[in-house]
């Protein structure tokens, strides 16, 4: 299991080298963790990330999640204009015969959804923090971010979770 995770993370790392060209920098090297965790983002224990940029927050699933899910073949996202609540499901991804709920790390109004995912759900695998974003939300409660994990905490959380299995 650990060997499989390492092997797939190596492949992801080769993919992530393109993402690191952007302003989002990897927080930790591969030698310290099996999946990429980025600075400037907040993380939920259900493996979603959120990046706040002014009045809009972008949400997606983490590299750890996409690695464990396998090839994403379908992404179900809501329509703009709806609302999300912290911790509740707003959509789902399908991979390897499974649908997995995607939960929102924050509450707010959905202002935009990633329409590219309809044709290219694999963006969630290849670029989970960039092109694979799922929804953009206008947060209704900024204090909710304080309950989320930072990069270091999330990395440790993932390591502990994987070590427990």
């Amino acid at each position, binding site marked *: 299991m650990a060997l499989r995770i390492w092997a797939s993370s190596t492949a992801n790392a080769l993919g992530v080298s393109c993402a690191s060209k952007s302003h989002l920098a990897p927080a930790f090297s591969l030698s310290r963790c099996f999946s990429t965790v980025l600075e400037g983002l907040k993380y939920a224990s259900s493996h979603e990330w959120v990046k706040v940029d002014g009045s809009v927050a972008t949400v997606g699933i983490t590299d750890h999640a996409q690695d464990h899910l*396998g090839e994403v073949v379908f992404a179900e996202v809501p329509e703009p204009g709806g609302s999300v609540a912290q*911790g509740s*499901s707003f959509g789902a991804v399908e991979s390897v*015969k499974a649908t997995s709920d995607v939960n929102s790390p924050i509450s707010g109004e959905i202002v935009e959804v990633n329409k590219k995912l309809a044709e290219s759900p694999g963006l969630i695998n290849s670029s989970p923090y960039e092109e694979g974003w799922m929804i953009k939300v206008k947060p209704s409660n900024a204090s909710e971010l304080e309950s989320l994990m930072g990069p270091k905490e999330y990395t440790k959380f993932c390591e502990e*979770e994987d070590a427990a299995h």
Partner: protein
Amino acid sequence: MSVPQARKGGRPLMNLVRFKGIPILKQLHLEEQLLRTSSNNWCIINDGTNAPNIVMGLSGKPSELLELKPVLRDGIPVIRRFTGGGTVIVDPGTIFVTLICNKDAVPDVQPYPRSIMQWSSLLYNEVFQGIGDFHLCENDYVFGNRKFGGNAQSITRKRWIHHTSFLWDFESRNMAYLKLPKKVPEYRLARSHMEFICRMKDYMTRSVFIAKTVRAIGNRVQVHAAEDLYFCFLEFRIPTKLLCFWPMTGEIGEENQHICLLFSLFLELLMTLEAVFLLVLCRLSRIFPCILYNTQWLPATTPKRNITMVEIEIDASNVINLITLATSQPPDGFPDE
């Protein structure tokens, strides 16, 4: 109203519910409700569904997966279920085994597809030990290199469901409704449906399979034969849908279109009337004991099915409980539906 404990002693508790011949759409709706609204662990075994139905995964597209003309000609219902995976055609020869678990109930299983399937394959290894070279092959249950069981999952924040349809037997002609999917497992090679799949009946009887499955599950969790089944009418999104035919386009699609909306409203009305009917009969049964037929509203030609005697109780929270009192074979002369 007592609620079974999710864990008793050291091992998690799992409620076992056994059906015979309930419609697959009803089974899927029940599974979704239990996954989303229950906090208990469940094992559901449905020994055959009542009539042939096509069941697609969440992202399935009828035009890509089905031979639409024969499907429409023969009036085969098409269902889109809430779990992932491919398309199957199920019928009375299909045995369904569903496991719904809290993540904490099986702590050595990560809530991801591969981990869940690894765990379930160990369970079925025990069921089929020494029989027919059983193993999990690229997410399918196979004897040798022939598939006889397809499975799918849905994973929520705190729970997951793993359900399997086992081809104990099947009608060869039914496979003609399915196209060869674009994405196939590597071990399938270029084989047709009939060369790719096999029948479990060639290896094991139905009763032995079910008994061994229950025993294997009991080796991992504490099985509790569920005497009551809670239907909680909480609001949640229900992806499982019976798809409808659109004559204008010749397509089979979602039921949120006008004709299908009317049809689905009609079916909802029938379900409500059935619930009221059962409620009245049960009230009368306190004075005049009677046997209630296990009714179902989906039009189908059904073989005689077991009679289930139920009592309906509505508690203070307006939750309707169907308490199964007994299940028996219908007596001779008892009218079919």
